[in-house]
């Protein structure tokens, strides 16, 4: 402290250096401020006191105030419908709009699940993956809820909100316009998809009678017109016989994806798989696939040849000529000189084909000639189909593999290209007065060079009868919302004599109309007299005059009608139909004249979203593509060699999703697409799926993928979907393509054929198994004698012998704890990999049954897709010619479950009937269980996906109606996994209790088991030695995945038998 006056000072006290002031500068706080706080010393009206008082009184008030007992209200019916019992499901037989016979399960009036109708002769109780998911489209929030007249100039404040009109105005105006057009000679054009319904066809004819200028144009993006016209050229009939896939010993398929996208896939899978019964190995069929694309059928084939489609014609003719040369020709018609230029040996040498394949193929079709079915895909041209018909004739199999008494009916022929062109010209020229889009989307589906998009906007009156707004609803027009298939009446005749009925299982949930009834209303005199019943009556009266008389029923019509509605189908006895004679000149009149130039482009069908009409279905967008495992996208698929040549890459980044872009150009039409490299494709061959790239659709499907119709031309290439002379070059930019192939991989080192070495996949060949059976039977006899009397020792020795004969090692599972004993039912599952064709129907059915949320592309790229069941794909062989193995993987419900031991809150436990239970309300989201699961089948809810996906799309009012009330809807932070459909097990237990008996294993069918078209999944009680499941568990071909880690899984897989000749070594071990 100096005595001199400070230079800077804050107060006179400081200036004068008062000791207290100087002392104060050394302290942070003024003296006295931080002394003890004494409430009572505060003045009465202090702030602190006030706040304290406030806090205390509000706490007190809170406790006293609300009725904290309150459990809400319980609201029941006012007038309960007779048919409803709370908690019990009702079933209705109906048909979907593609003709598939279904049985719809409803709860309290709401449809919640679609399965196959067991009475239906085509589906026989099964439907496809797409059909399973169609239930979501009923409740789609993007469905139109009221009629719209677009040109009404109301102030539209939300861009998505369309001006609501009223029915009276719309009806009166439309009828006025129709009458005006008919009177002034202007055409009334009705554009529709292919007609599958005889009554709908009749209606269109009646409509044309009422309005004479009406003309119907029907189109289908994915059509079979080449095949149908080829059949007509060959046999003079448009009625193609149905194919008996289960009668064929050998199937030779040329670019025909019959297990994936072509024809009636459900029936084809069932019939194909019925000939792959491991208990009858000598009856196994053999599939030869010749294709440029890598399709699901190709992945399932026993033998596959990569061959670009331009060469298929030559191959088929060469095969036919080989049959004739070997003297096995069964065709008794006129001369076969058309085959003279062809030689199989020459063809094989010229195109450097795999000799083994050619030899096997020739040998097999000669040995089984009259049971060989040769088919070609619908993308192939007329000439190829005619050649296929010739080959079948030469083989002599036509009467065995086709059923002429049940033809695939065409109710109305599709419009030809010329007819469509003339429609566009008429529209451009102002000669069309009214255009009706009858549940169709021509702007999206028809090739852009047809000019439909610009021409249709010139039509003065356009009416679109659609479920949701689509690309064809752009111009000023009337948009009439129509009923979903589950709200409609109709009939379908996909095959002659099978009349399926469609009945509404729910009254229309919005203010929509049955499209046929709307037409009937516009044909009637009372324009405002629309009722849902209009078409119902029309349908009934049509059945009375055209179906009932054919039925030979002894009951009266009404009884017959109600029986048909109950069953869902009326089967009319088939007459005997003879096979027509083959017209060999069909080959001369239309020979194949295409040679491969540059690249070949195949525009294929999407596996699940159809021609794009299901693009807004989140489940279908998210079920992985069966071959590439991609979701939410389409792309240009190409072989690794082609990709190398173009210098494009895919999936080499950290998240395996960056794809280079290519520009594909077909005669001046271009499209930029991302690349997906798929082993097994032919070189210089690109395949792109149609149905993507929709722009005018709900929020789920909008701008998903790329619109490949941009590459199509109305004049076609080789066909409308197959083009050659295509140029492809690398383009700028990258795209994120999400595939789930590498998600949830079992934690094994990725060495070549690791899946075989580690016994994840076990495969043998049919010859090996036949041999094994002989040796095994012999061993059984020998050991029975050796261990006479001692059953236990005999069984043990037999098991050892079996393992040894199969070429495996025996190992012992040591356990320090005693095994738990299950006295009652113990649930288990068996999946027969011989029958499984990886169609994905089980995955979709599980999604519907268990309220699985849709997560979207971004989350799927992080491996967060929530499918409880998935199909894993493993490749062996080489990237040029891969051998693919599929394996459906789900929770194995292990006896020694590694997930149960590690849950810190005991949220997952084991039930006394063998299930691994998941208790959602206990789970705190540690995710330790998922970490421990060796099969990676546990799914974690990283978000509340219902809120998170597309701005809460799945929280909207209608979609909450779709949930299965027996299954918890999981929220954020909770782990979930397959429960072996525990809700169905509980239901079965309740039924058994009501009947006073114990539950049996066969009482329960899980959703996946019920849905599988190949009946590959069996579920039941392993404690019952007589049950089908027990027999499969004990089967020599049965094995468990990752058996050696001793978790004791309860899903038995039955090894696949490939019907190939060579001994496939299945890896060293």
């Amino acid at each position, binding site marked *: 402290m100096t005595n001199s006056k400070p230079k800077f000072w804050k107060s006179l006290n400081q200036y004068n250096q008062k000791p207290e002031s100087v002392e104060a500068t050394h302290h942070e706080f003024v003296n006295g401020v931080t002394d003890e706080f004494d409430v009572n010393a505060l003045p009465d009206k202090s702030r602190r006191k006030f706040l304290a008082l406030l806090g205390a009184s509000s706490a007190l008030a809170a*406790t006293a105030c609300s*009725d*904290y*007992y*309150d*459990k*809400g*209200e*319980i*609201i*029941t*019916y*006012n*007038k*309960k419908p007779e048919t409803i*019992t*709370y*908690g*019990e499901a009702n079933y209705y037989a109906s048909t979907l709009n593609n003709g598939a016979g279904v049985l719809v399960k409803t709860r309290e009036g709401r449809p919640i699940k679609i399965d196959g109708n067991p009475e239906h002769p085509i589906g026989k109780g099964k439907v496809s993956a797409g059909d399973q998911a169609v239930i979501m489209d009923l409740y789609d929030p993007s469905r139109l809820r009221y009629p719209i007249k677009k040109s009404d100039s109301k102030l539209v404040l939300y861009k998505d909100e369309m001006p609501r009109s009223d029915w009276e105005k719309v009806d009166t105006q439309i009828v006025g316009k129709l009458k005006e057009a008919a009177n002034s000679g202007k055409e009334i054009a009705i554009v529709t998809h292919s007609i599958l319904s005889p009554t709908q066809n009749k209606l269109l004819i009646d409509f044309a009678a009422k309005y004479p200028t009406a003309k119907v144009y029907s189109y289908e993006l994915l059509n079979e017109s080449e095949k149908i016209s080829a059949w007509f050229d060959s046999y003079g009939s448009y009625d193609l016989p149905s194919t008996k896939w289960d009668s064929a010993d050998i199937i030779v398929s040329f670019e025909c994806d019959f297990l994936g996208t072509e024809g009636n896939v459900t029936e084809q899978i069932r019939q194909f798989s019925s000939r792959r019964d491991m208990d009858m190995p000598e009856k196994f069929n053999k599939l030869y696939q010749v294709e440029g694309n890598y399709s699901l059928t190709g992945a399932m084939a026993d033998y596959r040849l990569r061959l670009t489609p331009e060469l298929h014609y030559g191959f088929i003719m060469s095969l036919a000529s080989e049959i004739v040369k070997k003297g096995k020709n069964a065709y008794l018609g006129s001369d076969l000189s058309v085959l003279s230029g062809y030689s199989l040996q020459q063809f094989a040498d010229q195109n450097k084909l795999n000799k083994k394949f050619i030899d096997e193929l020739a040998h097999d079709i000669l040995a089984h000639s009259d049971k060989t079915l040769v088919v070609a895909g619908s993308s192939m041209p007329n000439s190829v189909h005619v050649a296929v018909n010739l080959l079948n004739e030469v083989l002599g199999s036509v009467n065995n593999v086709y059923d002429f008494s049940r033809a695939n009916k065409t109710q109305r022929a599709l419009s030809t290209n010329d007819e469509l062109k003339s429609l566009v010209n008429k529209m451009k020229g102002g000669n069309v007065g009214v255009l009706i889009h009858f549940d169709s989307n021509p702007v999206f589906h028809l090739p852009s060079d047809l000019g439909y998009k610009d021409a249709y906007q010139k039509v003065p009156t356009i009416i679109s009868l659609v479920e949701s707004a689509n690309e064809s609803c752009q111009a000023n027009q009337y948009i009439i919302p129509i009923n979903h298939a589950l709200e409609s009446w109709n009939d379908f005749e996909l095959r002659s004599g099978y009349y399926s009925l469609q009945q509404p299982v729910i009254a229309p949930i919005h203010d929509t109309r049955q499209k046929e009834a709307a037409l009937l209303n516009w044909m009637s005199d009372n324009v405002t007299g629309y009722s849902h019943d209009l078409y119902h009556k029309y349908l009934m009266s049509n059945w009375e005059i055209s179906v009932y008389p054919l039925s030979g029923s002894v009951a009266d019509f009404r009884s017959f009608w109600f029986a048909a509605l109950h069953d869902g189908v009326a089967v009319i006895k088939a007459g005997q139909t003879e096979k027509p004679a083959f017209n060999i000149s069909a080959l001369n009149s239309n020979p194949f004249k295409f040679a491969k130039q540059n690249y070949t482009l195949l525009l294929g069908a999407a596996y699940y979203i159809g021609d794009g009409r299901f693009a807004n279905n989140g489940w279908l967008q998210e079920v992985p593509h069966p071959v590439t495992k991609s979701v939410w996208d389409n792309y240009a698929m190409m072989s690794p060699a082609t990709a190398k040549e173009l210098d494009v890459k895919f999936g080499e980044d950290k998240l395996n999703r960056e794809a280079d872009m290519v520009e594909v150009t077909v005669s001046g039409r271009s499209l930029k697409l991302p690349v997906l490299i798929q082993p097994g494709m032919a070189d210089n061959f690109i395949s792109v799926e149609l149905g993507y790239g929709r722009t005018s659709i709900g929020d789920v499907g909008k701008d998903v993928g790329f619109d490949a119709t941009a590459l199509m031309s109305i004049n076609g290439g080789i066909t409308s979907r197959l083009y050659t002379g295509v140029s492809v070059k690398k383009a700028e930019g990258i795209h994120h393509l999400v595939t789930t192939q590498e998600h949830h991989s079992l934690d094994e080192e990725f060495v070549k054929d690791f899946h075989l070495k580690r016994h994840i996949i076990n495969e043998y060949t049919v010859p090996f198994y036949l041999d094994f059976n002989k040796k095994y039977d012999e061993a059984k006899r020998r050991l029975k004698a050796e261990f006479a009397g001692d059953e236990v020792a005999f069984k043990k020795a037999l098991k050892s012998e079996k393992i040894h004969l199969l070429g495996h090692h025996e190992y012992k599972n040591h356990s320090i704890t005693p095994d738990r004993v299950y006295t009652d039912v113990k649930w288990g599952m068996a999946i027969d990999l011989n029958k499984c064709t990886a169609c994905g129907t089980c995955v979709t059915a599980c999604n519907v049954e268990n309220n699985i949320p849709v997560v979207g592309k971004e989350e799927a790229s992080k491996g967060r897709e929530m499918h409880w069941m998935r199909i894993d794909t493993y490749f062996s062989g080489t990237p040029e010619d891969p051998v693919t193995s599929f394996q459906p993987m789900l929770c194995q419900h292990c006896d020694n479950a590694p997930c149960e031991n590690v849950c810190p809150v005991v949220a997952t*436990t084991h*039930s*006394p009937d063998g*299930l691994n*239970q998941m*208790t*959602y*309300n206990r789970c705190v989201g540690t995710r330790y269980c998922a970490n421990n699961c060796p099969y990676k089948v546990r799914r974690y809810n990283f978000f509340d996906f219902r809120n998170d996906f597309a701005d809460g799309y799945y929280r909207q009012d209608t979609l909450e109606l779709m949930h299965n009330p*027996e*299954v*918890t809807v999981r929220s954020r932070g909770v782990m979930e996994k397959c*429960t072996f459909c*525990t*809700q169905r097990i*509980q239901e079965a*237990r*309740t039924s058994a*209790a*009501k009947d*006073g008996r114990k539950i049996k294993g066969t009482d329960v069918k899980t959703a996946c088991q019920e849905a599988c078209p190949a009946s590959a999944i069996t579920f039941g009680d392993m404690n019952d030695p007589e049950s089908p499941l027990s027999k499969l568990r004990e089967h020599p071909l049965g094995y468990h995945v990752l058996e050696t880690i001793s978790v004791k899984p309860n899903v038995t897989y039955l090894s696949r038998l490939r019907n190939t000749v060579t001994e496939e070594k299945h890896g060293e071990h």
Partner: protein
Amino acid sequence: MKKTILDYALKVKLPVTVFVILMSFALTYFIAKPERDGVGYAPEQPIAFSHKLHAGDMAIDCQYCHTSVSKTRHASIPAASICMNCHKVARTDKPEIIKLTEYYNNNQPIPWKRIHRVPEYAYFNHAAHVTKGIDCANCHGDVRKMEVVSQVKSFTMGACLECHRNPHENMPQMTQAVNPGPTHCNACHR
């Protein structure tokens, strides 16, 4: 010796804090017991329906109105249409019946106050219990004597498990052997 802060903390603050915590825990536990197990809740209903009159004096069977109790997992509150089976003509002058008829005619469901509630993540199955011969009164008490229905039994998971583990103790009227109820998670939690 000068009193240190630690002294004060240990001798006064610590026991007081511990005492306050224990007392508030005990108090909360007992005050909140009815909320936890629901016993004693007897709310006023929109229509003063008396079980004593209908189920007791008139001896109408429980299952006449609560129809699905032996068929499915829900007991189901009867729809207004079941009431109207009789009350279309019976006692139409009474004010409560007039209220009922109004609801029925206006297509309004009656907003009954819910008394017995098990959380949604527990899927209680009525049919499984009723078909085994368990009487309604075992869990719901003697409803036939209640003017206003109240909850008499605790509906906590512990109470359910107690009966599952010792069925005979809780249901002495069952003369035949009763199997203990399932105690594994999936029986109720899916």
